[in-house]
């Protein structure tokens, strides 16, 4: 018949690629959809993946695709999925922006998350080069340097302040016009962390490498890098469209293997958690979701 895929994997980041690898090795017919919007594409190096520490994200993807393409039942489509609907026969129809439609028995949602940044001119130029969102991923390279944390969210400000202190004690927190409560200010003061609440006017640097932050009053401070606290959003509404239950914080309800509340729909990686994790964690979740697909396929 027309190729009925055992599983369509939406997204080719760590989760989707590792799921493809396991399903390919398990002789499942897989459609792997990739629209090339991997969140790590803006960063220079990816850290913390054992045997791959410091690898360039593009290289990681190239190596991963080479691994996956060894398995002939995995088909790689550089298409953007725009709709997934469950048909009356229980199969899923996958529609793409390229106006091709596919049919699959199971779906793994692995589309990751995207960042929404505070409204600061040119902030994306610096993101991934000298400003990062994940201290455990990129803190080492910034150790003992004069750093800034840009955070508009008090809870995160306090947490990130204390966390980044682990890598550098020369810290300034900029809240970009948001006030902090007295207890939060006190907690940060105890660690000698300076807090600047006035709005940021602009960032200065060369080729994405920060050297100075200018505030609305004209006050300037020299910093070589640091961390931003973005809002994370899912880049699509597939989970909602498919009727997957969500947690209060918007993450997808999944079991330990990535099964959602909807039969034959799985979620893996950052899209499930609606928060940043790391390449190796996402890849592991993709592995687990693929195992669940294989186990659930046993008749």
């Amino acid at each position, binding site marked *: *018949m*027309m*190729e009925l*895929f055992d599983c369509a994997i939406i997204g080719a980041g760590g989760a989707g690629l590792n799921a493809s690898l396991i399903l390919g090795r398990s002789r499942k017919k897989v*459609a792997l959809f990739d629209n090339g919007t991997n969140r790590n594409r803006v960063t220079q190096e990816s850290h913390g993946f054992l045997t791959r520490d410091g690898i360039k994200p593009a290289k990681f993807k190239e190596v991963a695709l080479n691994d996956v393409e060894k398995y002939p039942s995995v*088909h790689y*489509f550089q298409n953007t999925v725009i709709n997934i609907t469950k*048909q009356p026969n229980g199969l899923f*129809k996958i*529609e*793409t922006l*390229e*106006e*091709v*439609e*596919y049919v699959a028995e199971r779906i793994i949602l692995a589309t990751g998350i995207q960042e929404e940044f505070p409204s600061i001119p040119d902030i994306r130029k610096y993101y991934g080069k000298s400003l990062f969102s994940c201290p455990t991923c990129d803190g080492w390279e910034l150790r003992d340097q004069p750093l800034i944390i840009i955070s508009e969210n008090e809870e995160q400000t306090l947490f990130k302040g204390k966390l980044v202190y682990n890598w550098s004690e020369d810290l300034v927190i900029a809240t970009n016009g948001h006030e902090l409560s007295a207890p939060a200010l006190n907690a940060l003061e105890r660690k000698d962390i300076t807090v600047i609440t006035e709005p940021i006017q602009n960032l200065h640097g060369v080729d994405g490498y920060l050297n100075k932050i200018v505030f609305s009053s004209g006050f300037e401070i020299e910093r070589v890098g640091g961390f931003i606290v973005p809002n994370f959003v899912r880049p699509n509404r597939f989970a909602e469209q498919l009727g997957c239950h969500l947690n209060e914080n918007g993450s997808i309800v999944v079991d330990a293997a990535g099964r959602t509340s909807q039969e034959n729909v799985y979620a893996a990686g950052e899209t499930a958690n609606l928060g940043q994790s790391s390449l190796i964690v996402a890849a592991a979740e993709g592995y687990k979701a693929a195992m669940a697909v294989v186990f659930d396929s046993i008749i």
Partner: protein
Amino acid sequence: MSIVHVTTKKELSEHLKTKKMVLLNFWAEWCGPCKMLAGVLNQLSEEFNGKIKIIKVNVEKSPDIAAEFKVMGIPHSRLIIHNKSYEPIVGYVPFEQLKQMIGI
């Protein structure tokens, strides 16, 4: 109009015995882009009636033919000239572009 619908491999092989170029098109009722492409195929058939024969295969009714042509997504179209099958054209393609792709 030279558009035919086939459901069996036997019918298909009969229809492939032609001197015209053939555009084999795989589609399904539930496929939106297939409906859009159907309009393009009608136009192609009207304008190039003597040159091209369009053969349509519903993937739900003829899964064996779809499997033979390794159809993974639809719409999926193949140019066939003297029984030689060329690379698939996958997805909706506007009229002018399709004309160029099949060299008509």
